[in-house]
């Protein structure tokens, strides 16, 4: 900087140049609009893709508590009563009025028609009488809970919404039995709302499974005893099992799907961001070259370099902000709460796209960054223009 000026004057200069360049946008409406549309589009897709991931993550992270452990067999076969008893005797298992809270469950899938042509798998879970001790969020919102021994089922509210055959009052024929839907349940928005529940012994008899189980859910006395519990089961030579915390189990199960969405979605958003940045660079260069004479005039009038640089950057940031906010708003209206289904853990998994505040903020920051990069280089160029030639330039 060749000229020394006081900060106050500098600030005033900057403010007036910025005001001037914003005011002149309306004379360059078309390129400015194209830049805004570019930013807006990128933010829109960014939000759209990541809202899928966030929606899925929200369902999975709401599923499971830290003080519940899932015990499953390594290898084929079923859990029998002696095994169930051994698991119940392990250290750290909480006790209810009827003994240890180690509940055998049965998980399998039903093939149900979603429409006349489309079949989909839905997870059927057979649970024991003390299910409330493990799944305390689960509560019936319509109808009533199933009564054991009567082949009654209750369906999660997402399932009820997706499958006409599984609405309240319907009878569903499966495995040579008629199952009556007697209730619809909610479970705090977790993945169990995409399932169908029945009494574990009804499921056992429908599948000729005797008194065996596909897995065991264990309520622990506190989240902290998990490691001790796991170690006890792992070191027991009679058992060959895996032990997981319920809170991490389902997220791990859906890792494949999640990684596809994160990787593919991330790459797409990145590519688009790069493309839009070059678009923005072009627009801002065009804006600077259209304003060559104007900028040179300002400089000739005695304005310093840095206010000129800042004004160009400021303009690009402004366009980025407008695009970012517009993209965020449209994205929110378009995607938030959008209902979709996918496959998770062997059956249908319903979820809603979630446009979270964090996501909106990230989208806006992304747009501002694109604006910053897109504006900075043209701005430097503007400041370097030799005044005498630029002012003559047409």
């Amino acid at each position, binding site marked *: 900087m060749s000229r020394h000026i006081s900060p106050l004057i500098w600030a005033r200069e900057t403010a007036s140049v910025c005001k001037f360049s914003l005011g002149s946008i309306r004379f360059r409406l078309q390129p400015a609009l194209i830049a805004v549309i570019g930013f807006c589009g990128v933010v829109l897709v960014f939000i759209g893709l990541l809202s899928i991931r966030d929606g899925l993550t929200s369902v999975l992270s709401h599923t499971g508590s830290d003080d519940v452990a899932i015990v499953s067999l390594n290898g084929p076969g079923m859990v029998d009563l002696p095994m169930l008893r051994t698991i119940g005797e392990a250290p750290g298992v909480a006790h209810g009025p009827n003994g240890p809270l180690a509940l055998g469950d049965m998980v399998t899938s039903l093939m149900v028609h979603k429409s006349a042509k489309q079949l989909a798998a839905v997870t059927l879970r057979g649970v024991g009488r003390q299910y409330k001790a493990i799944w305390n969020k689960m509560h019936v919102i319509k109808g009533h809970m199933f009564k054991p021994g009567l082949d009654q089922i209750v369906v999660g509210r997402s399932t009820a919404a997706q499958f006409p055959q599984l609405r309240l009052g319907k009878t569903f024929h499966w495995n040579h039995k008629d199952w009556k839907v007697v209730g619809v349940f909610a479970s705090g928005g977790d993945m169990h709302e995409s399932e169908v529940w029945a009494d574990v012994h009804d499921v056992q008899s429908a599948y000729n499974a005797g008194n065996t189980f596909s897995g065991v859910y264990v309520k622990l006395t506190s989240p902290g005893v998990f490691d001790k519990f796991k170690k006890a089961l792992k070191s027991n030579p009679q058992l060959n099992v895996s032990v997981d915390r319920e809170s991490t189990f389902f997220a791990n199960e859906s890792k494949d799907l999640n990684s596809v969405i994160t990787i593919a979605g991330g*790459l797409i958003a990145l590519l688009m961001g790069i493309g839009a940045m070059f678009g923005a660079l072009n627009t801002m260069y*065009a804006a600077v070259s259209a304003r060559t004479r104007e900028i040179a005039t300002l400089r000739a009038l005695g304005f310093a370099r840095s206010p000129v640089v800042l004004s160009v950057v400021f303009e690009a940031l402004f366009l980025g902000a407008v695009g970012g906010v517009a993209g965020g708003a449209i994205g929110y209206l378009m995607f938030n709460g959008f209902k979709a289904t996918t496959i998770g853990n062997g059956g249908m998994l319903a979820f809603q796209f979630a446009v979270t505040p964090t996501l909106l903020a990230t989208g806006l920051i992304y747009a501002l960054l694109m604006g910053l990069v897109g504006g900075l280089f043209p701005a430097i160029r503007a400041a370097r223009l030799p005044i005498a030639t630029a002012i003559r330039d047409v």
Partner: protein
Amino acid sequence: MKYWPLLWSNIKRKKLRTIFTLFAVTSAFALFGLLASMAHGMNGVMQIASAERIQTSAKLGALPISYGPKIAAVQGVTSITWFNGFRGYYQDKKNTFQVVATNPEGFLKVYPEVRLNEQARKAWFGDKPGAVVGSLIAKRYGWKVGERIPVQSKNITKEDGTHTWYVTLDGIYNTDLPDRYKNFVLIHYQYFNDSIAKNKNYVGVYKERIADPRQAAAISKLIDDKFTTSFPQTRTASEAADTQTFIREFGNIGFITFVVGAAVFFSMLLVTVNTMSQSVRERTSELAVLKALGFGRGTVSGLVLAEAVGVTAIGGALGLVIAWLLAGAIYKSVQDVLPALGLPPAAIGLGILLMIVFGVIAGALPLRQVFHLRAADALRRA
């Protein structure tokens, strides 16, 4: 090519702008290529499914090997195979691959897509600790027919307490299926089942070949009816039907991604096309000079179009190369969901077509305006 210097100096006229435009086109086509690869990856699941194959799994628990003969006896089933196996590794724990334990004769009948020469077939059928491997894995580890290969497992223990199976390589198979299917090590089920310490006599899934695909549902029902009163019960369905269920469910998201991506691709290109048109419009007076100098309409249009198509073609080609590299880089992490991920020739063709179309649009839009003006007027505008 006498116009080359003129074309080149036009392209260089605003170097930065050309470079930025080029990169914008590149990222648009990289996006296009990536989306096309993923769409192909999804359809690939379908391509593997055969209408002549049905599959039986357990509704609950695991399938015993004793179901095999009972299923094979069902009318309409021409041959049957079954799978078990483990994730194996070779030398280093990072060199993992799928070891498939199966019945060799049945497997090759149920999977005619798998090609194995007569000599290798004979050798493998009679050699209990023998294996055949996919062409890609053989190449990766430099395995030769006749070699003895130690295949190790991290978590399956043999009866003798070790974790290593020594198999003789009897042959190398090839197939037109996606790459993932050229990375298997196939061994005898009998050999595997006899060797393991625990969980003997189970299989993961049965696959049956049927003579008449139209009978798939009826034959599936016949099979399942045999096990209504047994444990476990079975669920049989055609591969195609199961795959369709999977794709419909998973595809829900795939479709949304695709639509959004396609919309962005086109809007990105439109913005770029606009920039390119802008750069031609700025040169209206130059083009008028060319006309005044006696260049014909055709030559002038040719020059402008060649410049525009040149930029979209170079940028587009770069983009497709990037997409191809990216697809290769992420293949490993997504192969279980998208086994056929890759850039198909049809997408390359469509990509080239799009490059030309957008290039022509970018050049033709401003040309109309240029020709609308008479040379004298255009010159005066400057």
